[in-house]
Each structure stands twice: as structure tokens, then as C-alpha cells.
């Protein structure tokens, strides 16, 4: 057996395990819940912290996210999403709900970052799993084909939870323009992914 196939078998069994844990959680298995938390919380905290920035708020959101996991685990359908995707979706939604509910009380942006900003594409180009899976490669290719501003809007929204208004402030453009950029970016992305 080659190393590559061994690694892939590991990855597969880990996915099966998470799905199995979610299954157990859906019938109220607290041990499985603890296990699931242990195996996924660092990733979800990365998701949440990226959007909330604030650690205290992020901890509250983690609590909310895992309570949603506990309540809605029976809605997980392994044929439609991977466990990680399902969990990340819950965490992102909880984080976005929290930052929208809080409103923009603190400045999201600092000037220095604008000058020296890390290209959000760097994150897409640096997956935690190597080599990058084909679906990520496809998405990266399509993102790379977007106009730069459209791509930055999409990625800042995804990774950092920017609202239309946040993006408007960031790019110093009217909200209407941002809406158009998002519309065009998403349309182009959908068209591109449909052909890959």
C-alpha cells in the first residue's frame, strides 16, 4: 500500500467518524458531543474568530454554535455535506448573526492593515490539507478569474464577515456599487464552477 492511499484512507475514516459522532449527538449522546467538540472546536474557533475578531464575543458564539450543533444534529445529511462543511456553516451563521446583532460598535478596520493588507486569496491558496483537494483547486481557479475587487469582496465577506456596509466603507464606494460587485462576482463564480 502506498503512503498516498494510506493518507486518503485516514482522511476518509476521519470523515466517517465525524459523521458517526454527529449521528450519535443527534440522539443525545453527550460523550459523542464532547468527542466532536474535541475534534472540531479549534477549527470552528478559527472560523468564528476570523469573523468576530473579538475573543469574548467569539467564545459566546462558540457556545451558541455548539448548542445549535446539539439541537440540529439530526438535520445533518452526510449525502449533502461533509461534517466539516456542515459544522463550519453553523459556526459562520452564528458568528455573522452575532456581529450583525452587535452592530458596528467598534471600528472593524485599521488603517495600517489597509496599506499592507494580506491578499485574502493567500488563505485559499494555503489549505490546511496538502495537496489541495480538487474541489478547492477548482474554486481557487474560478476565484482567480474574478475581477480583483469582486474577489476581495467575496473573500472578505466569507472569511471576515464583512457586510455590504462594511465593504462599502472598506472600499470607499457606495453600498449600491458593492451590491453590484457582489452580484457580478457571485454570477461569474457560479458560471465558472458550472463549467469546471
Amino acid at each position, binding site marked *: 500500500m502506498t503512503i498516498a492511499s494510506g493518507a486518503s484512507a485516514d482522511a476518509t475514516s476521519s470523515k466517517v467518524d465525524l459523521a458517526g459522532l454527529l449521528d450519535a449527538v443527534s440522539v443525545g449522546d453527550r460523550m459523542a458531543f464532547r468527542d466532536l467538540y474535541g475534534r472540531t472546536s479549534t477549527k470552528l474557533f478559527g472560523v468564528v474568530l476570523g469573523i468576530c475578531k473579538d475573543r469574548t464575543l467569539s467564545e459566546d458564539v462558540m457556545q451558541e454554535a455548539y448548542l445549535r450543533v446539539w439541537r440540529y444534529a439530526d438535520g445533518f445529511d452526510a449525502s449533502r455535506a461533509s461534517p466539516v462543511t456542515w459544522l463550519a456553516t453553523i459556526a459562520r451563521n452564528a458568528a455573522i448573526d452575532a456581529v450583525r446583532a452587535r452592530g458596528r460598535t467598534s471600528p472593524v478596520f485599521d488603517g495600517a492593515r489597509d496599506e499592507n493588507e494580506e491578499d485574502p486569496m493567500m488563505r485559499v491558496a494555503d489549505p490546511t490539507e496538502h495537496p489541495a483537494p480538487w474541489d478547492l483547486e477548482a474554486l481557487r481557479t474560478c476565484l482567480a478569474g474574478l475581477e480583483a475587487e469582486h474577489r476581495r469582496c467575496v473573500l472578505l465577506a466569507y472569511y471576515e464577515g464583512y457586510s455590504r456596509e462594511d465593504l462599502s466603507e472598506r472600499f470607499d464606494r457606495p453600498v449600491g456599487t458593492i451590491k453590484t460587485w457582489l452580484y457580478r462576482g457571485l454570477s461569474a463564480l*457560479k458560471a465558472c464552477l458550472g463549467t469546471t
Partner: protein
Amino acid sequence: MTDDECTALAGEYVLGTLSSADRRQVERLRVSDTRLDGEIEAWEARLSPLSQTFEDVSVPDGVLARIEAELDREAVTVSIEDAPRGGHGRARLAYAAAVVALMIGLGSGYYVRDVLPPPADDSYIAVVNRDAGLPALIVRVDLAGRQVSVRPVSAEKPADNDLELWYVGPEEAPRSLGVIDVATPLKADLGQGAIAPDGVLAVSLEPRGGSPTGAPTGPVVYSGQLIRE
């Protein structure tokens, strides 16, 4: 909404660029709009590869303990609770009003006919529920007699709390119809104020004796829409 607009709205919902109000609106719409619901799932799938790109960040130790404490607390109420946490009573009741569309037409009429006395003139009825299971309460509102009759069917409550029944009219703050007993039928005075045909009844979890503020303070555990008899 054109297909393109639907795709864009779903995409922005999944990206998270919408305001709170628009997010709630999308969540309400997707319940009955299969095209929108499908588009949301399609966007989640399209963007899902990005979920592999998040960096791990270690979580402070106390977080799991807090979550588990919350689960312990909820263990008492979990069988009756199905409303999202967070936000205030008004928002929760708005949620109840939003999900109630789901609950109508789930075959509840069967119970209504079986367990209630014949209707009075000019009365409304609501099957107050939390999912497609057995109704929690059946409530009849008799406008002529200004009476509310509450018939518990399968309602449950934790020992430390009381359940309080609220009428939520369109554009109106929730109005308390009183604390309800899950074991015995109850007749209560409707009090002043109109009952609108599209009003909603909601039951919230409150401290013993009912809400101390006059507005709902706990999560909505059951809700149901008033239907003219």
C-alpha cells in the same frame, strides 16, 4: 424575484453580507420557497471547499464547560424547547410567527375536531405546537364572551419555570393572556384589545409566576396561528 436575483440573494445570504433583518427575511422565505432554499444549499456547496482553509485556533478551556453547563440546564427543558436563543422576547416571538406557517396544515385539524366542544360564534382557534407532533395546547378565543380557553394536550414544562401564553398581533407588542397550567384546562379573560385574524399565540418559558416585566423574557417553546372557526 428573477432566477438571477434569487441566486444573488442566496449567495449573499451564504456569504453573510446581508443585514440581520434581511437574513431573517431570507430564513423566513426559504421555508416556503423551494427555489431559494435550493439556491442557498447550492451556494453552501459551491463555497464549501473554503471550509478546508480555516486555520485551527485553540479554544480557551472554559468554553466546553460553559456549553456543557448549558446542556445540563436544558436537559430539563429540551423536550419542549425549539426556539433559537439570544435576542429579546420580541425577536423570539417574531421567530415564532415566522415558523408558525410551517405548523399549520400538518393535520392538526383532526385533533381540533376531536378534543374541543362545539365552537361558539365569532371565535378563533389555535393549535399551539412546536413541531409536527402532538399539539401542546389547543386554545380557543371567544371574542363575544371575551374568553380564552386553554386545553393542554401534551405541553410540558420544567419544574423551575412557568409557561406564559401571549397573543402577538401584527405590529403589536406581545400581550399576556396569563400563566398556563400544563395539567388542567383553563379559562381566562381575554382582556381589552383586538384580536387580528393573522395573530399568533406563543408560549414562552418564564420564571415562576410569569414574566416579571410584562413582556416575554424567556424562549418561545410553543406557538400557533389563530384561525377563524
